[in-house]
């Protein structure tokens, strides 16, 4: 039966290439013109354990994976067992029958569509190595779904081209082996079948948040990226390493996060655009220098990719528990900006804005995101790379200095922002100091100076607020006049949009207030959005941190809190149920 939408899961052990297989499948649907969302779930280990990739594909935009699965592609027995409860009533399994004997998979056979594929046998038949089994399974999957298998073949060819014709040929044979086997044995039996909409490449991309941020940073002119590996921030680092060099970008893996941020501050101070990325524990180590960026008014961009805490926590799972920490991080008081994208387009846009704001206001900017957004695959229109705005604020050219003499790095100005000079510029010297300093940047161990420079730094706020008021600091999704508003930030956006779609079908009067620019808190925009509404807070954490900010900054009360803090992102189905509960 043709369906508009389908939800699949590919599962197996770490090391079996689950992510790659899932992504190939996602890409196949994506290339067929469908909208796809794909998400990977894996524990912190390299081989074994249980990994699974969940993907949804539909003829209309999809914003999230869905826990309810129509078809499970099981490369091991555990996958069948674990996800059984989430398989829809009319759902089914494709599984490796060489590995999982029928009497071993624990699935009540009467209820589900079962499609055993002897992967090992087929692999041997075509003369491939074990790694090819996933591809066979993918071929079988497309057969069962009655989906155009040539799309996958094209993708495989693109992927393996540089590895030579033999590899391409083997992949081709594997796809066909799976496809033919399934067609022959289970043709047209499965409830869920889905059709490609288009076969011509469109100006769309299937991209995870990491890459959206990395490309955004590159487009914004980030020339220096230094970061210590840490899940889920490493994707950005790897992308910079793989792609940066050809664009003249320096990427560095230093000895620690402390080194990373100090290097980036050095690079930014020296005049380029520079960034670091990390996760919770690494960010902790950065806080001391973060405060220095505040004090020295160095434009600094930090991507903070949240995972489940506290401490080492669940290193490969998601969460949103670092919001208040990031907003209050580091000793002393200084203005900072915190941006929280909710999808890949926002990741790209806000990253660019992060660099502009950092330089315009000469302060540190945090891009706060999480594992779910960084590592999930989103379907999006391709990013616009022409006319990316680059505003370096009061940065002076490196031509011989002709401004007011002497040049004073921390000069008092009306808007608190001093003209910024790149060290090395002829005819001027640049001095700055992590201690209280005078306009000149030399140390000024006087209380009067401490106060004046503190005032100077906060004097940026009016201009900053004015600048931000022109941004979409808050987005309202759905009818502005709804009775209830879901309030959230960051990656839950996708699940919330899905829930909203259902709730609107049920004619609920509800919308979604998404706060993107969280610090400085956009009080008036938020208050406007909340006016007259019941508020349901949705956060991927235990204490409702955005809720605390709302309590602090507005007179609105959160009426209901929906929190999830088990490391998993929200499932739209479950979320919808919980919102319905809240609406009662």
């Amino acid at each position: 039966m043709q369906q508009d939408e389908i939800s699949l899961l590919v599962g197996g052990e770490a090391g079996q290439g689950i992510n790659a297989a899932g992504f190939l499948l996602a890409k196949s649907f994506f290339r067929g013109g469908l909208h796809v969302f794909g998400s990977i779930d894996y524990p912190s280990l390299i081989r074994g354990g249980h990994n699974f990739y969940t993907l949804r594909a539909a003829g209309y935009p999809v914003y999230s994976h869905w826990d309810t699965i129509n078809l499970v592609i099981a490369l091991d027995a555990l996958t069948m067992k674990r996800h059984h409860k989430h398989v829809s009533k009319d759902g089914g399994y494709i599984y490796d029958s060489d590995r999982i004997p029928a009497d071993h998979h624990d699935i009540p056979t009467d209820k589900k569509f079962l499609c055993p594929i002897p992967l090992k046998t087929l692999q041997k038949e075509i003369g491939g190595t074990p790694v090819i089994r996933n591809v066979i399974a993918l071929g079988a999957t497309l057969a069962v779904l009655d989906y155009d298998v040539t799309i996958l073949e094209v993708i495989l060819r693109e992927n393996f081209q540089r590895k030579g014709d033999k590899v391409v040929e083997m992949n081709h044979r594997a796809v066909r082996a799976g496809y033919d086997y399934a067609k022959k044995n289970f043709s047209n039996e499965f409830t869920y079948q889905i059709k490609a909409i288009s076969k011509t490449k469109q100006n769309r991309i299937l991209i995870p948040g990491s890459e959206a941020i990395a490309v955004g940073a590159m487009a914004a002119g980030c020339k220096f990226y230094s970061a210590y590996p840490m899940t889920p921030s490493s994707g950005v680092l790897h992308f910079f390493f793989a792609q940066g060099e050809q664009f003249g970008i320096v990427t560095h893996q230093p000895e620690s996060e402390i080194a990373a941020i100090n290097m980036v501050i050095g690079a930014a101070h020296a005049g380029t655009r520079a960034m670091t990325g990390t996760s919770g524990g690494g960010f902790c180590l950065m806080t001391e220098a973060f405060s220095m960026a505040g004090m020295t008014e160095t434009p600094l961009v930090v991507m903070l990719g949240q995972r489940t805490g506290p401490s080492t926590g669940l290193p490969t799972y998601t969460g949103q528990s670092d919001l208040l920490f990031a907003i209050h991080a580091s000793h002393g008081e200084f203005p900072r900006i915190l941006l929280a994208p909710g999808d890949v387009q926002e990741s790209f846009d806000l990253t660019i804005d992060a660099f502009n704001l950092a330089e315009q206001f000469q302060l540190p900017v945090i891009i706060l995101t999480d594992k779910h957004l960084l590592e999930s695959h989103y379907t999006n229109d391709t990013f616009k790379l022409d006319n990316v705005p680059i505003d370096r604020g009061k940065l002076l050219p490196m031509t011989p200095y002709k401004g007011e003499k002497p040049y004073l790095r921390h000069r008092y100005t009306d808007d608190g922002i001093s003209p910024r000079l790149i060290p090395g510029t002829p005819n001027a010297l640049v001095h700055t100091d992590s201690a209280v300093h005078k306009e000149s940047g030399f140390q000024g161990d006087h209380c009067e100076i401490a106060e004046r420079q503190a005032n100077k730094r906060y004097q940026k706020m009016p201009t900053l607020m004015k600048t931000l008021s022109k941004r979409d600091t808050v987005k309202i999704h759905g009818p502005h006049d709804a009775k209830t508003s879901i309030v959230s930030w960051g990656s839950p956006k996708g699940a919330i949009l899905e829930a909203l779609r259902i709730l609107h079908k049920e004619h609920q009067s509800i919308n979604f207030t998404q706060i993107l620019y969280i610090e400085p808190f956009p009080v008036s925009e938020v208050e406007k959005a909340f006016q007259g509404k019941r508020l349901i807070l949705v956060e991927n954490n235990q204490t409702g941190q955005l809720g605390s900010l709302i309590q602090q900054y507005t007179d609105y009360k959160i009426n209901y809190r929906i929190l999830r803090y088990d490391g998993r992102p929200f499932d739209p189905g479950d979320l919808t149920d919980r919102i319905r509960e809240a609406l009662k």
Partner: protein
Amino acid sequence: MQKPTVENLDTLEPNTWCKGCGNFGLLRALKATLAELEVPKEQYFLVTGIGCHGKLYNYVDVNGFHGIHGRTLPLATGVKLTNHELTVICAAGDGDQYDEGLGHLPHAARRNIDIKLFTHDNKVYGLTTGQTAPTAIQGYRSKTTLHGAPSPRLEPLKIALASNASFVARGWVGDLEHLKGLMKAAIQHRGFALLDIFQVCFTFNREQTFQFYRDRVYKLEDEGHDSSDLHQAWTRAQEWGDRIPIGLFYQENRPIYRDSLPQLKKEALIKQPLAPKGLEKLLKEFM
């Protein structure tokens, strides 16, 4: 811009070091060194740590960054990789560099980052009122080692040699001509240079005084030391007691970190345009 002279390197900042502090000599040697080189003032970048040594930043009129405790090396690395035309000098303390910031040293050394590390090795935490520093000699008494420092001191030169540093030297503030020579050699060295400087803390260190060093130091060059010989360097670095060697222990020419970055072959990062061309092809991969 101006070529540095001892005079124009002065700032108008009031000097807040104690009378008698060895830092004055170090400052003098540094200014004299810069005045002898042909680099214009704006091409220097001085990074200092937190401690008495860190105030050096206020007294030398070149580009400067008074960073946080223990982190001169990574900050300087960021500056240098961004604008490698700058001559980047770090002035660090022994608490600063060898306690808080020790983890950065072997890495900067083995990577051969082209920056110069001058350590004000006074064997105490000066600015925090005289606690025992890691380089304090075993038995040294202070308010944090009342019975005397219980452990052998940290030996920076040995750590640097063990980390494949390409330039390892030791000077002292009682012989400014000699110190100047070492500073100059360090600056002219292509690669990472550690110059550990015995800097007398007049106020707190009552043991490692000017006299202490005067009685003990001798110059390696006076004894035919071959600074290209790692083995000799290591042996000399062990010497401590009645005779303490100063001078250039080891120097080697090997590629610097930047040599591994094709991006920086043509010109400094700062000279290159920000927004790269051809990014579209990156997005093609996601289509």
